[in-house]
């Protein structure tokens, strides 16, 4: 299963603009989630600081996609 890719890395200015347009970001560890992909239970989210969080199908957080 190929690892999904984030489409657009949002700058702080873009995030501020979206919030000004009433977009509400979900949060993870007090960081805004700027992208998400869920493939058959495998989840990856991208955060505003450029980091990514991966969770496998068993709900465990892992470092690599597919682990």
């Amino acid at each position, binding site marked *: 299963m*190929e690892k999904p890719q*984030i*489409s657009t890395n949002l700058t702080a200015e873009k995030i501020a603009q979206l919030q000004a347009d009433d977009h509400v970001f979900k949060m993870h560890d007090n960081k805004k989630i700027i992208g998400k*992909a869920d493939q*058959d239970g495998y989840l990856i989210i991208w955060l505003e600081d450029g980091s990514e969080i991966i969770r496998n199908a068993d709900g465990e957080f892992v470092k690599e996609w597919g682990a």
Partner: protein
Amino acid sequence: MSNFPRVQQYPKRKITIANGEGYNINRKGSFLRVREATAKFTLIFDETHELQFEQNDRLRLLRDEQSGEQKQFEKVRVLNDTGSDLTFQLEIGDGEISTNNTASSGETAVRTNPDTEVQIQTKAGTTLKVDDDATQTAISALETALTNLLKNDQDKRSGLTTFEGASSAEYNNSSGTVVSSGANTSGVIIRYAHVSHHGNNQDFAHIKVGGKILIGRDAGTAPSNGNIEHSIKDVFIPAGVAITADSQSVGAWATIWYEVL
């Protein structure tokens, strides 16, 4: 002489002969039907032509193409080569005779009794039959169900959409391969898919099949400022074709429920 066909039973009453025995019938004719026979047996016409017959088989000789004269056999010999006793009775006659019944023998035989029974004997000798009310009722119910499914009725078709056995995928500001062409070995059913995006034409989302958009929009084709909601369900994707999804902004979503067959 009357031109009406003449048919009589031979012998007058059915008889039984032992295996290996023969029974001669010295009767000319152009038509013969096996009225009754307990097994397949051999008929020898004019001590020359041997044919295998069974109950309800018929033989009718044609007219000579050149002379137009009706062909006839002079006599018939029943040979019991069945391996056991044979009980039989024939009908022999001449004249122009045809019936509205058809009997066939060989690898496949079909025998019907009006309204209630159809029997099919396979080459291997297995008898398939529909001869009871419960089976008839089940077949009728199946026919009705299939008819309803085939109707272009949205309410009935909705029953096809089930998530049982299906996987899901969801993309927001991300893209991925839902099912690769290599993983799609036997086809995929898209049970339900939905895309939405809100914003300008760079905020599109779509689901592609074989590299072509199934639902949603691509860059440059999305409205400059507006919302799009597209959904689709119960689509079969042939084997070897990839399914991909793409969302280009936080305001765009692509969701799919699918079953890999």
